[in-house]
């Protein structure tokens, strides 16, 4: 991950991994990997940590709702279900706020959902490409194109000028 200035986040988030009731089975991966450490300071690392926390919250709330719905129907259960749904709505709004805040940075977080739970969040960033290279970095693409010499000739016998790195055959 490239070092970039840390921006003020949308909220002073408490990393769920530092909480005593942390449920690791609901903590999603980010870009297929474990999210960065809670104290990460790089901007893109912070984005990953915050998106992971947002979807962790949604996963936990969803799990509570699923457990509740397994109970027999009753007035109390329906009242509790309403609360759970309101909680999910609040968390979705918080997730949307997070997306809004980081959208101008070019960050896009797309959840991969399995059985109602976000298991992975695919995040792309504005300042680096999919390979982690700064988008503003110049880079070269090289190709090896073998050109056979006429039979019996050596490269040094040829009256051609070839420029660029790696164009001379290795010395014997």
């Amino acid at each position: 991950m490239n070092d970039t200035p840390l921006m003020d986040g949308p909220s002073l988030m408490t990393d769920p991994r530092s909480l005593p009731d942390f449920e690791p089975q609901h903590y999603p991966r980010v870009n297929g990997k474990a999210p960065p450490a809670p104290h990460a300071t790089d901007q893109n690392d912070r984005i990953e940590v915050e998106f992971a926390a947002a979807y962790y919250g949604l996963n936990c709330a969803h799990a509570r709702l699923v457990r509740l719905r397994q109970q027999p129907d009753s007035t109390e259960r329906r009242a509790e279900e309403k609360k759970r749904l309101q909680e999910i709505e609040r968390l979705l709004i918080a997730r949307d706020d997070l997306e809004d805040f980081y959208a101008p940075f070019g960050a896009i977080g797309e959840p991969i959902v399995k059985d109602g739970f976000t298991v992975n969040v695919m995040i792309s960033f504005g300042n680096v490409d999919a390979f982690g290279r700064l988008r503003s970095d110049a880079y070269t693409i090289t190709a090896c194109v073998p050109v056979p010499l006429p039979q019996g000739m050596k490269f040094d016998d040829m009256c051609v000028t070839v420029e660029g790195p790696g164009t001379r055959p290795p010395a014997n």
Partner: protein
Amino acid sequence: MQKLILANYQAPGDVTVLTAAVRDLHRCCPDRFITDVDTDWPELWENNPYVTPLNAADIEVRRIECRYPLISFSNERPLHFVHGFIDDLNQQLGLDIKPTRIAGDIYLSDEEKSQPSLMEQITGEAIPYWIIVAGGKFDCTIKWWHIRRWQAVVDRLRDRFLFVQVGAGRHYHPPLKGVIDLRGRTSLRDLVRLVYHADGVLCPVTCMMHLAAAVEMKPDALSPRPCVVVAGGREPATWEAYPGHRFLHTIGMLPCCATGGCWRNRSVPLGDGKDTAHRLCVDTVNNLPRCMHMITPEQVVEAIRSYEPLGERTKLCAGNIFDHRMPPLFTNVAAIC
């Protein structure tokens, strides 16, 4: 006749505008020049009657680097982007070319025109559609409107318009729901053909806006191609807006664009080495430039609907096309809850 190779290696939007200068060079100076072009976007020059392949090694060929320094006066003088390359050619060639049309000049072959549209190839039906571009390049994030606002426009027009989302895979184009998703799946020539068949275009100030004006119209078209541009305050409308377009801007409404476009590039620093203070937006609302924040989905919806009297919508729209016709590959659905 003088042989010219007109060169420009800028973005496809710029080269689209260059096509206007080549057209007007020939219209204003008929039979004086043979022109070829050297750009990164040959797809924009296909079937162009003003382009003749020339040999760059031919000593009779003059190569001209085409630019538009006139942009430096875009906030003060009554100029359109189309004037930019033309003025530069006038300076370099000692001519007096006048713009004959405020639009680029992109042609389709008869075969291309007769082929079913990309949408028809996907769906099997000639469905009316609008193109939507909900993002842009990373080097100019200030042009971006918010994804949630683009989505709100799509949602509110769901029963009336079908949108096809396009955008280069290497740029910022977050996925919209309820649209046909062709992001990263179109070549530039595909886009030209897609524009030809489109009922309209919705976009920020981007290549697609120039294409909407430049791609030739269908023979039965009554007016220029509808296009709604979410522009904000970066660029003066006089420089960017095309006749017939709804160019939603905030020039004159904010201190930072009180008398003209700010021409800044970034909403927030991205930390990619291209952030400099003079390029950074000075007035943001939750990281969105205030000028873009001031443009609401309602305004955009109203602008799109203002074109409705031009053509009768068919009953095919996003509201029912997803139900039974669209292969899932091309659609985005809600991912959670």
